[in-house]
């Protein structure tokens, strides 16, 4: 016969690690694909919008009219930091393993700034408006990580 008891409310509650991991394979379409192709070839691209602005990373659609954007134009390689944040203690998932800056960088010829990191060594080397240039990874595959980081422009 079933034994009936009061539930043991003081039970030690269980917990366990749960890992969500998947090697997502993303198809890029022509616009994002062109941007990533450019990175592989060490070329930075934006799309030209209907109002003439150049948007980087390239937008697939016009922020004003909503229409498809199809004209890809070369920008950079240098640019200007429009805002930045200094990371004293990088997270293991961050792109750099030493203190660095997140930054919005407006590349030469672009009208909008893109998000990436600046390897500046120390926080004192960072300022809004500073000039930066890309540092490319040696092994490139057509991904945002091909652009390893920006660095303060020399000279």
């Amino acid at each position: 016969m079933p034994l009936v008891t009061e539930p043991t409310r003081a039970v030690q509650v269980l917990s366990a690690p749960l890992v969500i991991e998947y090697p997502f394979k993303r198809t890029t379409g022509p616009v994002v694909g062109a941007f990533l192709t450019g990175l592989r070839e060490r070329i930075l691209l934006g799309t030209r919008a209907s109002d003439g602005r150049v948007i980087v990373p390239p937008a697939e659609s016009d922020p004003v009219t909503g229409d498809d954007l199809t004209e890809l134009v070369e920008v950079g390689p240098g640019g200007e930091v429009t805002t930045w944040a200094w990371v004293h203690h990088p997270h293991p998932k961050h792109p750099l393993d030493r203190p660095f800056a997140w930054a919005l960088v407006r590349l030469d010829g672009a009208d909008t700034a893109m998000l990436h990191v600046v390897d500046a060594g120390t926080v004192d080397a960072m300022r809004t408006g500073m000039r930066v240039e890309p540092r490319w990874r040696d092994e490139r595959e057509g991904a945002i990580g091909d652009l390893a980081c920006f660095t303060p422009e020399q000279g």
Partner: protein
Amino acid sequence: MVDVVLPESLRGVEPVRSVRIPARLEYRYTPGAASSRFLRGIAEKRILGERCSVCQKVYVPPRGACPTDGVPTAEQVELAHAGTVVSFCVVNVAFYGQEMEIPYVTANIRLDGSDLPIMHLIQECPADEVRIGMRVEAVWVDDADLGPTLESIRWFRPTGEPDADVDIPGEGVGTGLGSWVGGTAPGEGP
């Protein structure tokens, strides 16, 4: 597909069409108090359901709430290790994370004394002999391997008892099912 105009420097270059972006996130999973009570019981080779004080239904595994009444299930009920196959599926395909030899049978098994079937494996019986109404019992892993997981029950196997009458979930509830055709659905009001 949209046709794009590329700058001179990228014309004739093999374009990137896809990109592989692995992502890993680490979480801490907590099954909650009721499930922990249940799983701690399993680790001791006991199957503990919980009864709703309103509708008197016994839920196993308990989730802490009676989904009919929205109240905590307060009363613990120890259940038999035997039950009846309510329905089942013969699986002929291997899946991610699945180490069973195919074909294998997964079944909805209503343990004696409970009101909701659990899903588990049927083994020690050819797949084509499994049937609705078959009486089955739990086969536990060795005591040394018992743990707070339903995997402590390796599978269920036939008891050899005569088949039981199966009340397919919902069949005996008297909701009228689809018999409201052309009229008013049960519970919907005029």
